[in-house]
């Protein structure tokens, strides 16, 4: 037993060593190719402040891990994996027939965020989403920010996700984005920066809740002792947000019929759709369950047709209504947009929000914050080079092997070039693409994402991570403390997306004073009569 514990201890120390400077770094933690100038050792380590010395808020976790023999760690990881498989907490991998459903890899070691850091994140994200909602309202109405030249007009109008159809249309409470998942990264100096806003149909929140459930089972005592903010009230807060956005002319403003619209069982996030619908106690609906008559949306129930007021849609703009957007869609509902335009139904998020999470518009978000709120952005952006700008483009083309190039309208880790890990052929390919469509690409420096300890083959090693907190905006703003910490499980990889070999881990936001008050602060839901 003692010997095994020592083994586990060594594994952790090795992980710690990788946070040391390049000179002290053992060979195996070096980047395999000398061509690569990017330095992993520059990354911030979440657990260690110095080799073998854990940060204060990681001390208890560090001790627990040291006390666990590798066999026990492996056993607990297997038990957790089995829970995920049996509960069917899976995502779908497109393009593979057998074993279409995969479990989303879960890592047992929680990521811990002290309350002070969280407070700043909370403020920063609230500010950012408030500004982005004002921005969306503005560009679909007067366009003040465009006339004043803060954001170039052609940048907005040339965005693939800009919807002319939304011009002059008013949405309830002027909230376009009510459900947002923003990707944050921690820079080498320990500060957080925004990597990406996801303002269309952000996913992953169900894994946040599932991770928590599993972690509570695996490390019950440690969880209790740490004083962690609960996240379990997310579905209730989401429902309250959706209901607060019911249409003005809804007959049942106090109790609107709210549904979740899913593309169906073959969608990669289908598990999440069912999970959220179940947790909120609302109907999970597919396009074929709905119909529009006289600009009113109905769903087909066993008791006849029932009017629908609020739709939490997990279907992309393009597929919502064949009469208005893509005519070949079978996921949508013919006539839905007209019903929306007539103000008879709310869609959350609104149509056309993708223009604000376009990766080229992203570069302007600090300006956008300043323009509408007269404040400096609390959470900074990552430096971004626009390919439509001549000097920034030529800098990028000269330094492709150092930069990350992204297609502006893509998400999920698709359409990306990671310079330091790319081949000459890939770089040439991207060079050609950038020159062909400069508006479609941006470049960013390769970031040394922070690293956190993960269970790998019964030992503990460090992997790169990011953080996606979820923000809800309706009658009020709700941030569930924590979010989804995504892990690039492949050694040295910087891509955390589930489709690209990523996993996730539970995120613990600590209460102030380490948990004096253990009673959950659960927001009340106004006017809720039944489930």
């Amino acid at each position: 037993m003692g010997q095994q514990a020592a083994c586990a201890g060594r594994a952790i120390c090795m992980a710690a060593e990788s946070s040391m400077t390049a000179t002290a770094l053992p060979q195996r933690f070096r980047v395999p190719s000398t061509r690569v100038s990017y330095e992993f050792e520059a990354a911030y380590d979440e657990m260690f402040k110095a080799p073998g010395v854990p940060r204060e808020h990681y001390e208890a976790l560090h001790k627990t891990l040291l006390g666990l023999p590798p066999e026990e760690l492996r056993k607990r990881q297997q038990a957790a994996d089995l829970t995920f498989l049996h509960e069917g907490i899976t995502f779908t991998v497109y393009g593979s027939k057998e074993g279409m459903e995969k479990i989303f890899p879960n890592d047992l070691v929680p990521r811990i965020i002290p309350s002070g850091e969280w407070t700043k994140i909370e403020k920063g994200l609230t500010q950012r989403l408030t500004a982005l909602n004002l921005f969306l309202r503005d560009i679909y109405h007067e366009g003040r920010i465009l006339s004043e030249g803060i954001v170039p007009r052609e940048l907005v109008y040339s965005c693939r996700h800009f919807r002319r159809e939304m011009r002059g249309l008013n949405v309830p409470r002027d909230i376009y984005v009510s459900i947002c998942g923003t990707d944050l990264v921690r820079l080498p100096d320990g500060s957080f920066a925004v990597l990406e806003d996801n303002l269309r149909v952000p996913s992953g929140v169900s894994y946040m809740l599932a991770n928590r459930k599993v972690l509570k089972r695996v490390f019950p005592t440690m969880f209790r002792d740490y004083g962690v903010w609960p996240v379990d009230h997310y579905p209730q807060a989401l429902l309250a947000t959706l209901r607060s956005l019911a249409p003005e002319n809804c007959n049942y403003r106090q109790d609107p019929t709210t549904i979740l619209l899913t593309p169906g069982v073959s969608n990669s996030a289908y598990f999440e759709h069912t999970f959220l619908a179940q947790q909120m106690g609302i109907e999970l609906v597919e396009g074929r369950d709905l119909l529009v008559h006289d600009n009113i949306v109905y769903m087909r129930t066993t008791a006849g047709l029932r009017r629908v007021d609020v739709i939490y849609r997990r279907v992309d703009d393009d597929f919502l209504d064949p009469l208005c957007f893509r005519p070949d869609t079978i996921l949508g509902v013919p006539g839905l947009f007209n019903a929306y335009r007539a103000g008879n139904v709310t869609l959350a998020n609104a149509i056309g929000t993708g223009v604000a999470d376009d990766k080229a518009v992203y570069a302007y978000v600090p300006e956008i914050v300043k323009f509408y709120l007269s404040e400096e952005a609390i959470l900074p952006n990552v430096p971004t080079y626009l390919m439509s700008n001549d000097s920034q483009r030529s800098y990028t083309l000269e330094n492709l092997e150092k930069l990350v190039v992204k297609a502006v309208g893509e998400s999920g880790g698709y359409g990306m070039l990671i310079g330091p890990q790319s081949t000459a052929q890939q770089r040439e390919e991207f060079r050609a693409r950038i020159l062909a469509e400069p508006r479609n690409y941006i470049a960013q420096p390769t970031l040394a994402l922070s690293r956190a300890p993960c269970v790998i083959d019964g030992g503990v090693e460090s992997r790169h991570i990011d953080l996606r907190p979820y923000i809800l905006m309706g009658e009020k703003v709700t941030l569930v403390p924590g979010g989804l910490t995504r892990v690039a499980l492949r050694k040295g990889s910087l891509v955390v997306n589930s489709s690209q070999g990523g996993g996730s881990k539970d995120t613990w936001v600590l209460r102030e004073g380490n948990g004096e008050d253990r009673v959950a602060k659960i927001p009340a839901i106004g006017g809720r009569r039944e489930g």
Partner: protein
Amino acid sequence: MLSRVADSLYWMSRYLERAEHTARLVDVELQLWLDQSPDTGAGRWRFLLEGLHAPGAQGPVDAARLMNTLVFSRSNASSIVSCIATARENLRHVREQCSSEMWEQLNRLYLEVMETKPEEAWMLKSHGFFRAVQEGAHLFQGITDATMSHGEGWQYIQLGRYVERTDTLASLMGAHFRRTAPPVDQAVESAEYLEWVALLRSCMAFEAYCKAQTAEIRPLRVAEFLILNPEFPHSVRFSVDRINAALHVIGDLTERRAKSPTRIAGRLRAQLSFSQIEEIVAEGAHAYLENVRSECGAIHSAIHEIYFDYPIETELAS
């Protein structure tokens, strides 16, 4: 409740009932097989296929191949594996409607049968496999009753189960009566005895029959027990009673003029309540059971038309 959801719950339940039924039948058959000469054995297999409306009832009988058709074949939509996979697929489409415990159990059952290789389930371990399927289905039923609200969705699950059960029971017994002599009200022996016991076991009814009628196997009483007994869960009468109960609750919950399904089910129930086994046998038990099946089919169609796939025009007009 969404029509699509009701439809999925209903079919999920039907498929699971069918899987359980087939597992039970094949299990009984495999045990009986050991007691029989090869010729009788082949006849039994053919009868089994007929009772299950499975393909391959003609031609020479190869027990291993048949087993494969009935149990593992994915091209046979009624094989045990296909049924469980379809039941799971239906439930997967409406996961948010059931309790997570239900989903976990059905998913576990699915993973278990998918992992079983045909050669493993053959002979030595076969009993264990078929038991696992039956118990898996029973556990699912128990979990459903214990963890899901007995609201509208639960009623569709009941409806699916008992529509399927009525149909499979009538089909199994119909095939049985067609190949045996008209049932008599006296004890039978040897070969004939085995056949009737097999029928009882195929309906999980042997012990229940013995409690009601003693271990003396009188074919007429067996027929009466399986068709008309109001208390035994695998009798035709019991199943039709459950269909009626579920339809009444659903009718109340949806406030719909559910005239046609309740009418047909009520008529069938009245028939079973007031029939005597002697009359049924005199008029031909096989024909009687065929009539039960066709009524059951009519109930199914009526449910479909009223709740699952009604014409929108009439709805909007009303």
